[in-house]
């Protein structure tokens, strides 16, 4: 790999490019958020990717799908194809495993990841992916955005880091039973959620920044959780009020021995 290419990010640490190149990254969902993330990771120098998406490029994606083109829409390219094209354009030697299905249908490749980005729409999907990553000791970084109301509309979003030895998304009150129940009650009612490119860019960049800190430790913050809230009206990203005011102990939702393959055991 060219050292010239990465000299302006050498402040990340003496061995940072080596660390980056050996880390295995998973991205679940390659739409508005995931496509930003893949592009940035490829620029930074990541070499090992596991990508999941079962969708093809449609006209309604082109307002925000990074790397997507009108030709992709006409030829019904898979979003996986668009992501792979971006990666190989920057990192021709990269190892890319692309899985054209829901991750739950074929989770085997995801196990090999060290960090997984979740770019999905529902709380339930986030919850399921967090359970999986916790079981196999994988860092999970979740991003999502939404638009509420109409007078005027308000853009909100979040980036959450859930690490195996830190508080989970329930501990930081991003996932709650009430939220999951409410979502289940609205099942089939959601319609097309508003999505635009710039909030996804902010959230994806923030998430990638967290991942780089995990891999290189360049900030020395040693954070094992985070819950950052995006306010699209003010253009701010801040730690959620809930985590600002609390010290977190061991996560009660994921005991340390609740790892590995789920098994029935004799009582």
């Amino acid at each position, binding site marked *: 790999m060219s050292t010239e290419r990465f000299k302006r990010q050498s402040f990340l640490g003496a061995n940072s490019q080596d660390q980056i190149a050996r*880390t295995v990254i998973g991205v679940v969902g390659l739409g508005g958020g995931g496509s930003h993330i893949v592009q940035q990771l490829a620029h930074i120098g990541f070499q090992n990717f596991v990508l999941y998406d079962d969708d093809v490029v449609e006209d309604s994606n082109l307002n925000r799908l990074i790397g997507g083109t009108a030709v992709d829409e006409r030829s019904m390219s898979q979003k996986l194809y668009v992501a792979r094209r971006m990666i190989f354009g920057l990192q021709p030697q990269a190892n890319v495993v692309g899985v054209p299905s829901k991750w739950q249908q074929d989770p085997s490749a995801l*196990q*090999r990841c060290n960090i997984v980005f979740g770019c999905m729409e529902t709380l339930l999907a986030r919850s399921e992916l967090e359970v999986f990553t916790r079981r*196999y000791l994988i860092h999970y970084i979740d991003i999502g955005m939404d638009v509420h109301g109409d007078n005027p509309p308000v853009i909100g979003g979040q980036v959450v880091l859930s690490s*195996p030895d830190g508080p989970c998304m329930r501990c930081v009150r991003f996932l709650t039973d009430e939220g999951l129940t409410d979502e289940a009650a609205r099942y089939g009612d959601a319609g097309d959620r508003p999505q635009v490119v710039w909030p996804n860019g902010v959230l994806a960049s923030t998430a990638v920044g967290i991942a780089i800190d*995990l891999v290189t430790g360049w900030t020395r913050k*040693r*954070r094992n959780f985070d819950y950052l809230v995006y306010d699209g009206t003010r253009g701010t990203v801040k730690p959620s009020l809930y985590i600002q005011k609390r010290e977190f102990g061991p996560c009660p939702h994921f005991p340390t021995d609740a790892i*590995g393959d789920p*098994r029935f055991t004799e009582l």
Partner: protein
Amino acid sequence: MTTEIRIPRGLYEAVLADLRRPHDFAFERVGFLKGRLCSPQRDQRLILLHDYRPVSDEHYRPDDTVGANIGEAAMSTAMKAAFDGRATCDGVFHVHLHDEDGFTGMSRVDARELPKLPPGFASIGKTAVHGVVILSKNHGSAWEYSTDEKRLVEVPRIVVVGAPLAIFDKRRLW
């Protein structure tokens, strides 16, 4: 089939802290980690380290020829862990520290003595993988006991999962 061992950073740092405690007469400390074997996926399998059992002070025996000599009581505790781990595929990994920088491997004494341990664990914990982990200040090496080959086989990668994420590849300084 490649194997990757993962250990949460909190556990990793607790192990290092325990192994660094001086003992009244032993030159170094040893301990045992529990490692859970996951089903193989796409030519890779994971062993997830999730519990640490230090060896009590009184279970060391005076011996000037080795860094640490532990007695039957300590071995019984480790054997019981191998027995108890059958249902959950938890194996037992001997662990000790070479308090130096960079890549570390087995010393001559390690190479002579450590291969004797895992076959005993494997004889009663057949559903799991057992082995040896040797840590340095900023690296580590591990071996799993192959019941087919009846020898220790080096594990290519140990990942310390936390902040920061650390990857210890076989014979590489990290």
